[in-house]
């Protein structure tokens, strides 16, 4: 039987066998191929070459499952020198329609189960276990960013996340201001790290603990909606939690929304009016975890029949297919375009084949050279577009961009979209 979203490597044998190295996981969509400069979608391959891309990792996974390969000195790097950004997955869906991202996640889990993972990841895992955030900061300071508009009781819970709580408090404060205009919110008492870094690093047991703690806290609020401004938290609540609970996103007892999904319709209806003017050409960066990685999860069980077709099991409808195109793409673009004075520029790699900022998958901790390379490439695109600022919707993207500009001659301001919205209110 096939269970969608399985975390077991052996459940992806079909994917690993059927991959025939077409390299759609590596190249940008050919229709959208802009030039010979920005040709890749996979930062890992662009940095390291060889077969350090999904097709290579699937071949490795297959060899491991078939017991054809022992541990090698380079195996750990082969698996973990990857941003887990999902660009490969949307590429594969263009041609072979295999579940590449699930396979890579399961491969990491397989490696972790065998004790083969970067030492630098252990520190993050320890931080989350002890301090409930990835930075190792005191848990008691989590809400020290100073909520102003939080209410004791609301149908909407604001989940700040580690990044906005500790690293860039502006984002939490901006979200507070925005949500105040949209009818208020309540905090999640006892909020802990959503577990995103643990999941991306392949530590599924530790992730499950975080999930259970947060879900219990959410249940206690009785709220109908959870809103976050962090792309990683958004993906975790919307996709990974239901996935581990073997349910579809639509069956969660509460709605998970990104703050841009609240603001965009409010702007369209006139509930939110931008009074401030921001005269700038802005480059919009699609965060991986807001876009291609955050399609609603559909739980599905069944079998693979003739021709590889998926046949639904008892009680399950035909599988819905994720293509990476149903994430949140237009809401932030619509919001930015509505701010007086703003001109929104598209980067060459956008939407589901957006280039990752480098801040994910445990790379900044274990492979800082990969993280630095990825953001450096993205900033080349920003320069190429002639943008006067770059905007995203994830604290880790913002941090990556800020770090990336440090050693460059070409510098432009970096914003989180919540900051711009709050500024324009």
């Amino acid at each position, binding site marked *: 039987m096939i269970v969608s979203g399985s975390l077991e490597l052996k459940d992806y044998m079909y994917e690993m*066998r*059927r991959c*025939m190295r077409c390299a759609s996981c590596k190249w940008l969509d*050919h229709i959208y*191929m802009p030039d010979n400069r920005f040709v890749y979608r996979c930062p890992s391959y662009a940095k390291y*070459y060889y077969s350090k891309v999904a097709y290579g990792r699937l071949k490795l996974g297959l060899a491991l499952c078939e017991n054809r390969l022992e541990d090698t000195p380079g195996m750990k790097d082969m698996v973990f020198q990857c941003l887990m950004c999902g660009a490969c997955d949307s590429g594969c869906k263009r*041609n072979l329609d295999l579940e590449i991202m699930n396979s890579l996640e399961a491969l990491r889990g397989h490696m972790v189960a065998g004790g083969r993972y970067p030492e630098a990841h252990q520190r993050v895992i320890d931080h989350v276990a002890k301090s409930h955030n990835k930075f190792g900061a005191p848990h008691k300071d989590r809400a020290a960013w100073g909520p102003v508009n939080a209410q004791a009781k609301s149908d909407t819970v604001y989940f700040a996340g580690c990044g906005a709580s500790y690293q860039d408090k502006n984002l939490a404060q901006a979200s507070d201001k925005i949500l105040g205009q949209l009818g208020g919110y309540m905090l999640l008492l006892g909020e802990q790290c959503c577990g995103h870094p643990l999941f991306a690093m392949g530590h599924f047991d530790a992730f499950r603990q975080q999930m259970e703690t947060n879900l219990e806290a959410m249940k206690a609020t009785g709220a109908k909606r959870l809103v976050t401004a962090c792309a990683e938290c958004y993906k975790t609540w919307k996709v990974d939690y239901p996935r581990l609970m073997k349910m579809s996103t639509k069956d969660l007892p509460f709605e998970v929304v990104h703050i841009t999904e609240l603001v965009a319709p409010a702007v369209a209806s006139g509930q939110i009016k931008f009074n401030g003017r921001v005269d700038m050409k802005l480059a919009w960066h699609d965060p991986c975890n807001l876009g291609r990685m955050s399609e609603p999860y559909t739980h599905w069980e069944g079998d693979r029949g003739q*021709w590889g077709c*998926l046949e639904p099991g008892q009680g399950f409808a035909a599988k819905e297919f994720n293509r990476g*195109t149903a994430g949140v793409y237009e809401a932030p673009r619509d919001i930015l375009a509505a701010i007086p004075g703003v001109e929104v520029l598209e980067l060459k790699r956008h939407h589901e084949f957006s280039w990752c900022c480098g801040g994910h998958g445990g790379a900044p901790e274990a492979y800082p050279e990969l993280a630095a390379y990825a953001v450096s490439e993205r900033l080349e695109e920003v320069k190429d577009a002639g943008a006067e600022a770059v905007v995203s919707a994830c604290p880790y993207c913002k941090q990556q961009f800020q770090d990336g500009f440090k050693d460059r001659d070409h510098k432009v301001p970096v914003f989180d979209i919540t900051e711009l919205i709050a500024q324009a209110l």
Partner: protein
Amino acid sequence: MPKVTEKVSQAAYNALANIVGPEWVTDDASITESYVKGGEIHDCIYQRGQQPPGVVVMPKNTDEVQKIVKVCFRYHLPYTPIGAFWGVHCGGKVPFHVSIDLSRMRGLDWDEKHMVAIVEPGLIHSPLQAEAQERGLYTMTPGGGSQAAVIGNMLTCNYSPLNYRLGLATRRILGVEWVLPDGEVIRLGSLSNSDDPYWGEGPGPDLRGLLRGYLGWWGKVGIITKMAIKMHPLFLPERMKPVERGMMSTLEFPDNRIKWYNFRMPSEEAMRKAMREISRCEIGAAVMRVPTIWRYRGKSVSREDFWSKWGPDEQKIRDGRATSSVCRVLLIGYTSEAQLKYEEEILMEIMTELGADLGRTKQSDQSWIKNADSAGMWWPAGGYVSVEFVVETLEHSFARGKTLLKEKEAKFTPPLVDEYGEEGWIQMTDMGHTSYFEFLIQWDPEHPLGKYKSGEYKAWEHWVASQRTAIDHGQYTANIGSLSVMGLTGPAFGPNYGEIYDKVRQAVDPKDISNPPLDLHDRVIEEFAPQWMEEYDFKPWTELMHGGQEWWKVLTSRGYKWRDVLPEWYWDRDDKEIG
């Protein structure tokens, strides 16, 4: 007798590392493992026998390639050059070979004035096309796909419907830089006496034909590190805009300059006449008959969606009401809108006279201008291969299709996918002076139909059988080069095509180190399916020839068999019957 290097020695490894730096050479099995094609896509034919390399090395320029090849020559290391690793034939076959991965060499220079692109072996088609269009130029994207390396593809098939107007791509090869298997660098065309590669002919004999052969050498004659390619002036004032995303992303055609037409023809004779007449009138950019199954594939959003449409439509397709009766034509107003209008008038006149009905079609580049979805050929069933792809006359195309269909339906369906009487892909090339024919088969490698455990085994046999049918019916075949069962087709074409092949190989690659071996298929059949030698009436290449088999001689003298050098799992899929 050359000495087989069973494992890359530390001395050779160090020599390679000294050339490229330690970062760009590896023997780590977690990486080398993935330097086989995989997906079992062509296990039935070209990929059979592939195995991981002992070492992967990644040069960044011609100088490094030359030095690497010299090391291989000195240590007698077999090597396999890799461009984009799309061609399924580029995986190495000899144990512990060196993969020379040319992906870092992705250079692209322009001589816009003379409409020439100078490319390196790691460059693929879609960025070439994108940059060309920025300069008011274009080329065609081959059937091999946008992800195919330009040089690798130019040296092998490079077929495209646009070859109707543009001619075979190989004729657009100009100056070439070529590292021979002994490490010597030669330059062809105007590169032989200048640094300007704008001209294909140079002093002395034109070696471009030797370089490419009929269907390419598949890396057998060394490594091309630079090639100049003739481009064409773009027919559009602006770049075409991408629309939609995901599976359905495409380039929208401006309908005043480029337009598709689908005509339903009343009979096969009308189809032939239409294709001939369009060519005779010298109109159009592409003229073809596309297999029905690919039309269904193009309309489907998933594998399940495809089968939910294809299966129930069986009777409709058998009755000929589907698209194998469709003549698909692309018109381009190369110089003006008026040209498109003029050609459209002629096309309509031809089709009206033949009683054809104009159907609907999308006005977009589903394939061929910038994108070619050859990578997507696998998803409907899991396994796919083209058992034939050959350029001859239009009459030959139709005849070859009937021959192969008869064989396929009689002996190989199931487990091959039933295409309800489909006779293959036909298109006009060279303004109708020649015609391209391709016969594509599909199967499910995981869950085969019928009594055979392995669908790909029958696909493999169908490929061997197709070569026999070419000989028996006096038809031409693509399977006469190093791709083929040389013992079968070699003696049947020319004064033994195999002998010519081997003589050239010995002259260019005396140590047989560049992507060996030549006679792979014969060897595998001899061990794996010896009954076919009687059934299809041939002697393996090894009994016919005396040279060019050093690897095999040495391997067999040491007791090697395929079963020894290939992993155990490889042999799980064989001709065992179920139940």
